[in-house]
C-alpha cells in the first residue's frame, strides 16, 4: 500500500508549493539521524534549527503526519520529506517502535472517531432550535429577494437602453450592483455581476451572461415551483452556503474512492482547492477554501484510493460532496470508469447542464486521447475530434514527456469552453503511469 505512493502523490499532499519545495530539500537520509518504519507508522528525527531534533511521524494508512516542529501546515515539510524518503530510500528505515509521544498520538487518532460521533450528536442537540433557524432563514431570503429584484430591474434597464451603450457606463455601475448583491447575501450573483466588465468586449458572451443572471433572478421569484434538488442548485448558484453540518448528520456513501484529480487555484484573497473523487459511476467534488497565505486542510493522496464516507449535497446533478469524518486507509486505485470520447463527454455535459443550468464545471475521464501543442493546446481523440485545453502549459509538457505523443487517458475539468487536464495515465486507463 505505502510502496505505491509516488513522489507526485506525496507532494500533492502539500499545503502549498513552499512546503513541497522544502520537503524535497529535506528528503536526504543524511538530514535524518533516525528513520524507522514501525508497522505502517514512519517516524524519524530531523535536525532543525534548534538543538533538539524534530520528531516526525506519518501514519501511512492516511497518510496523516505529526511533527514536533512549530509549523502550522499539515502535513509540514518534515512529514512530506519522511514520506519522500520512504519512497526513495525505503531500505534505510529501521524497525524501532515509535516513542511514547507518537504512540499517544496514534491512540488518540483511534479514539477520536468515537469521540467525534458522540460529540457530533451533542452538538446537533445543542444547535437544534427550529424556530430561530426558520426566522434566520426567512430574514435572509427576504434580503436575497430584495437584492435579486433590484438586479432584475438593472438587467432590464440594460437591455432596454441597448448593450451598445453598456461599455460607456462607468465601472462604478457594475461595482455598485455587485456590492448591493453582496449586501443582500447573494454572493454568487454578485460574483457573476463582477464578471460583466471583462465581457464588455464580447457582446454575444455578455448577452448570454446577462441571460444567465436574469435566469437566477427569475428562478428565485418562481422558486415555489422548483423541486427540492433544483432549488438547492439555485441556492448554491446564488451563494447560499452549504449546510455541511446538516449534511454530515445524514448517512452518506461509505466506499473506496479513487482520488483522480486536484486543482489548486490561487485567487486574490483566497486559495481554492478542488479534489475530484470517483467510485463506480459517481464523481464527487470536495471543495476547500483558505484565506490567502493560510494552509488548506490536509489533501487526499492524488492517484490513490481512500476508504471514506462522502455525503453529496442535494442537487439535480449531484457532484459537490463533503467528507464525513477522516478518510481511512489509502491504497492503489480501484477500477476506473470507461474513458469517454470527446463527443461522449460533450453529450454527458449537456445532460448535466439540463439538470443544473448553473453548473460551472464537471470532471470527466477522456481516452484514448492525445494532446496537441499549439495556441491553444488541444486534446484529440481517436475519431479526430478536438477540443481546446486550458491551464498552464507546463503540466501538458510533462504529459507529453511521459507519453511521448502516444494516446493516454486524461482526467480533467470541462467548463463548457475548455478542458483543464488534472491527471493522466499512459496505457490502459486504470493502470498506473
Amino acid at each position: 500500500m505505502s510502496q505505491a505512493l509516488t513522489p507526485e502523490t506525496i507532494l500533492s499532499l502539500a499545503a502549498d508549493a513552499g512546503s513541497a519545495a522544502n520537503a524535497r530539500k529535506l528528503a536526504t537520509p543524511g538530514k535524518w539521524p533516525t528513520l524507522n518504519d514501525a508497522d505502517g507508522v514512519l517516524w524519524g528525527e530531523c535536525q532543525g534549527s534548534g538543538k533538539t531534533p524534530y520528531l516526525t511521524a506519518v501514519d501511512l494508512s492516511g497518510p496523516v503526519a505529526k511533527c514536533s516542529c512549530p509549523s502550522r501546515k499539515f502535513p509540514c515539510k518534515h512529514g512530506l520529506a519522511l514520506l519522500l524518503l520512504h519512497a526513495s530510500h525505503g531500505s534505510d528505515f529501521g524497525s524501532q517502535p515509535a516513542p511514547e509521544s507518537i504512540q499517544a498520538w496514534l491512540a488518540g487518532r483511534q479514539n477520536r472517531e468515537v469521540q467525534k460521533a458522540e460529540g457530533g450528536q451533542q452538538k446537533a442537540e445543542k444547535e437544534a432550535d427550529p424556530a430561530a433557524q426558520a426566522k434566520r432563514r426567512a430574514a435572509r431570503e427576504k434580503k436575497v429577494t430584495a437584492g435579486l429584484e433590484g438586479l432584475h430591474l438593472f438587467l432590464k434597464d440594460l437591455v432596454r437602453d441597448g448593450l451598445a451603450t453598456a461599455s460607456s457606463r462607468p465601472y462604478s455601475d457594475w461595482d455598485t450592483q455587485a456590492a448591493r448583491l453582496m449586501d443582500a447575501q447573494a454572493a454568487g450573483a454578485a460574483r457573476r455581476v463582477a464578471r460583466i466588465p471583462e465581457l464588455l468586449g464580447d457582446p454575444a458572451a455578455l448577452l448570454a451572461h446577462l441571460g444567465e443572471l436574469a435566469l437566477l433572478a427569475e428562478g428565485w421569484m418562481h422558486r415555489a415551483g422548483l423541486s427540492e434538488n433544483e432549488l438547492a442548485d439555485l441556492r448554491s448558484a446564488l451563494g447560499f452556503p452549504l449546510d455541511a453540518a446538516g449534511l454530515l448528520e445524514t448517512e452518506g456513501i461509505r466506499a473506496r474512492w479513487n482520488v483522480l484529480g486536484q486543482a489548486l487555484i490561487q485567487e486574490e484573497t483566497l486559495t481554492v482547492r478542488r479534489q475530484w473523487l470517483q467510485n463506480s459511476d459517481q464523481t464527487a467534488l470536495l471543495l476547500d477554501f483558505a484565506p490567502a497565505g493560510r494552509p488548506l486542510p490536509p489533501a487526499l493522496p492524488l492517484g490513490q484510493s481512500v476508504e471514506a464516507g462522502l455525503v453529496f449535497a442535494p442537487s439535480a446533478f449531484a457532484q459537490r460532496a463533503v467528507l464525513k469524518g477522516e478518510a481511512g486507509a489509502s491504497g492503489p486505485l480501484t477500477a476506473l470508469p470507461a474513458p469517454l470520447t470527446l463527443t461522449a463527454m460533450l453529450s454527458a455535459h449537456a445532460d448535466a447542464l439540463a439538470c443544473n443550468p448553473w453548473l460551472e464545471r464537471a470532471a470527466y475521464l477522456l481516452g484514448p486521447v492525445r494532446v496537441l501543442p499549439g495556441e491553444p493546446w488541444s486534446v484529440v481523440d481517436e475519431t479526430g475530434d478536438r477540443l481546446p485545453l486550458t491551464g498552464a502549459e507546463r503540466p501538458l509538457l510533462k504529459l507529453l514527456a511521459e507519453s511521448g505523443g502516444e494516446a493516454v487517458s486524461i482526467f480533467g475539468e470541462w467548463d463548457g469552453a475548455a478542458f483543464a487536464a488534472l491527471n493522466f495515465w499512459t496505457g490502459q486507463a486504470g493502470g498506473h503511469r
Partner: protein
Amino acid sequence: MSDLNMLLATALVGTSRASLPVHAGTPLADALNRVKGDGAESTLLARAALAGLAARAGQRPLPLAPPPDPAPAELLPEAPARVARHLIAVLNTPMLTEWLGLCGAAGWRVPHASVPDLLDWGAHVNEDLRATLRPVLGERSRWLAGFSSDWRWLRGLRSGEATLDEMEWDAATEAGREHLFRALRAADSAAGRAFLTVHFKAEKAGVRKRLLDVLAQNWQAEDAELEPLLEETLSDRSEDVRAQARRLLQLWPDSAYNLRMTGRVGSMLGQEKVGLLGKLTGQRKYTLSLPDTPDADLKRDGLEPVKHPAERLRHLLSAAHPVTLMTALDLTPAGLVNLAAQFEGVDELVRTVFASAAPPVQPAFPELAELLLPRLKGSFKHWRADLLALVPAQRREAELHAALRGHDSQLVLALLRVLPRPWPADLSAEVVRQLGRAICKAESQYAAYDKNSDWDPAWIQVLELAQTHAAPDAPRPPPLPTDAPDYARQTLDTLHASLDLRAQMHADFAAERKA
C-alpha cells in the same frame, strides 16, 4: 444568423428601439418563440439565457487537426530506479552535475518524467553545464524540446548537424546572437569558424566583440585557421574589438602577431659584456634601445609611442606569447624571467603567462610559473593560486596542505577552485577537518565578518565547494562537542549530509553498472 446573434441584434440597440426577433429555421426556434416574459426586456433576457445555455450544452468539437508525430524510440537504456531516486533530491542543487556525469558515464538516459525539469534547468545554466546534461537527455527530450520556446537551447545541436537559422540570427538581439554562435560552436566548432569568416565583418561592433569573447572563452588549437580574419580585425574601428583580436592572436605561439612582437624585442636588445664570473655562471646583461626605423604596424598591434625603451619592453612582454619570446631570443624560462626582472617587467610576464595559458598548455609553463612564484609582489600576490594552477599537481597539493595547516583560507580557496573533482581522499579529509576547526566557535553566519573569528567568507566558499568536490567517502573528523554553537553543528551536519548523499549516489551507480 444564430439564435443568440439575432437576440444580440435587438439587445445592442435596446428593446426601446427594436422589436424582438422571430426565430426560425434553427433547432431552438420553437422553444425560443414560446418563451414569454412580462415585457420585452424579460423575454429577451430569458431567451438569451436559453440560447446561451444551449450554446454551452451544444458545444461541438473543433475541426480535425493531426496530432504530432510520436517521439522516436530511445537509443539509450533508462537510468535504473535505484540511481534515478537520487535525481529528485539533487535537482536544482550543485550536486546535479555530478549525478548527470555519473549517468552519462554509465551510458544511461534520464527517466522521461524528469525531462521537463531538466530541460528547464538547462535553459537557465551556461553551456558548460549543458554539456553535462546533453548526453543523458535521450531522444524523447530532443523531441519534446520542439514544443516549448524555453527549450530551444537543445534544438538542432547534434554534432555534425549544426546550422544557424539565418532568420533567427537576423531577429536576434546582440546577446541572442552571442548565444546562437556559442551553441553553434559547441555543436560544431568548424561550422562556427566557417560562420565567423562569412558573417563577422557585417556585424555591429557590439556583436563583433561578443563573437570574439566566445572564441576567447574556449580557444582551440584549430582556431588558428582564423588568423587571417583576426589579423584583419587588428584594423577594426572599435578599440574593444581590436584588443580582443590581439588577445586571441597572442594565444597562438606561431601567429604573425607574436612574431612581430618578438621581432621588436629582438631589435631593442643588446648585450653588455660580462666578466669571467658572469661567463662561467651563464649570466647575461642586456642593454635596451628604441629602434630608429619606423614601425608601420606599431599602432595596429596596440603599441603606443614611448619615451623610455624599458616601457616599450614591458609592454611587449605583456603582449607576446612567452614561448615565442623564448624561441626567438634563444632563452630558457630562467633567462626570460631574468630579462623581465632586469627591466622591472616581472608583473607583465606574469600577466602574459596567464593570458597565453589557454590549452594546450606549453611545456615551458610549469617551470616559468615556478620561477615567477617567489617574485610575486604587491597586488600580484593574489595571483599565487593561479600560478600554482600551472605547476605540477604534486607541488600544488603540497602547497595546498601547507596552506591548510597555516589556516590561509584565501589561498586554500583559490587552490581548491582549480582542483578537479573529486579531491583526493586525504586532502578532502583535511579540508573537512579544517572547516570544523574554523567554524567550531561560530554562533551565526555573521561570525564570518567578525575580525576576531576564525570563520571567514573564504571558508564559507570552501565549505560550499567541499559539498560538491570533496571525496564523499573520505574519513570524517569526530563531531563537534555538544556545547558547540547550533549554527556550527548544523552547518557541518549539512555538509556531512551532502557527502553522505553523494557517497550513496556513487555506490548505487557502481552497483547498478556492475549489475
